[in-house]
């Protein structure tokens, strides 16, 4: 990819945004959603183990 060529633009009404910036904003949404959705790996001795140990 020719990185120094001007970036493509998304132009809708007042919104005027380069595709690379749009990717950054998209990443914020995607990563936040993924962080909410994906289960966090439980460490040893956490919830399950607590229940097992009573």
């Amino acid at each position, binding site marked *: 990819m020719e990185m120094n060529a001007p970036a493509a633009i998304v132009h809708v009404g007042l919104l005027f945004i380069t595709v690379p910036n749009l990717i950054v904003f998209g990443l914020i949404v995607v990563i936040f959603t993924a962080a909410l959705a994906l289960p966090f790996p439980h460490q040893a001795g956490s*919830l399950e183990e607590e229940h097992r140990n009573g």
Partner: protein
Amino acid sequence: MIRLQPTPDRDVEGVRQVPYDLVKELAIALGVVLVLITVLAIRLSSPDLPSATIQNWAQQDPVDFLTTANDELAGQSLTAQYGPPYNQGSGSVQSVGPISPQAWLGVHLKVRQPQDFVVNPLKRGAIDDAAVQGAVQAWEAASAATQQAWHDSYAKALAGATVDGPSVNLPSTNGGPVPLMLARLLDIAKAGGLDNLLLTNGSVYQTDYTKPLLFFSDGQYLSGLAQKQHLLGSMWGIMNESGQYPGQAWLLPYTIWYEIPPFNTAPNVDLLAVIMTSLLAFVLFALPFIPGLRDVPRWIPVYRIIWRRYYLESGTPSPGRIPLDSAS
């Protein structure tokens, strides 16, 4: 079941504690981020569009260069009429009602654009040319009205100028010494000399580019280059980067004011944008103390997803819930 070992830090403060390795988490994050930025650096490099020079400008758009220099001499350029902190003009002084910090703080970076941008570079750069030095003396000795008449005549001639390869052909003009002065300034600029003459301050070392950048930005050439890279203010260019790279997306809370009515057409948009962004910043800073705003997280139950383990275990909130508004 009987616990095999005591767990003194469990339940002591009403919340069950579980093992959690913060240092390990930081180490993993350091590793992951290093791999990520190394891959991005190798695959995508980083933006480095070479700087534009006054030499480029003089070579590629000599008429724009001559027009700008002519306006500098007669005090009709952006810089000439700017106002504080460069001079006593008022062309770019912004205020909201009686509030004008720009005017209050006054001139701190004095720029005398006829001398700084044209006269002194000619005195230094054409020191061996008696005709040019004579022209400079004639211009300096002339009255303001005469200088203005020379400017207007030369500007009229520039409007009919044609560019033929390296030379600019002008119709005849009553510009007095101005045509000779600016023709020589153009030659110096084309050779790359003006880039340095505008930096000259009597010292060897120099880090202050105020004068060359002000002169450069008075022309149309530089903004033409910026337009090709989508960097103009009208293109939300404040958060854009040259090339295919992400820009300063975090400037959105500032750049937005340049794009939405009624701010985008206001003559004092810069001051309005600074004020509005400062207000937004204060709201973010003081959020824990702003009734209503600080309750938004309770109304949008994202927290129920983040702490789903907690709510799963403790069931529905009991009547003895902790109020959210205990900020301090």
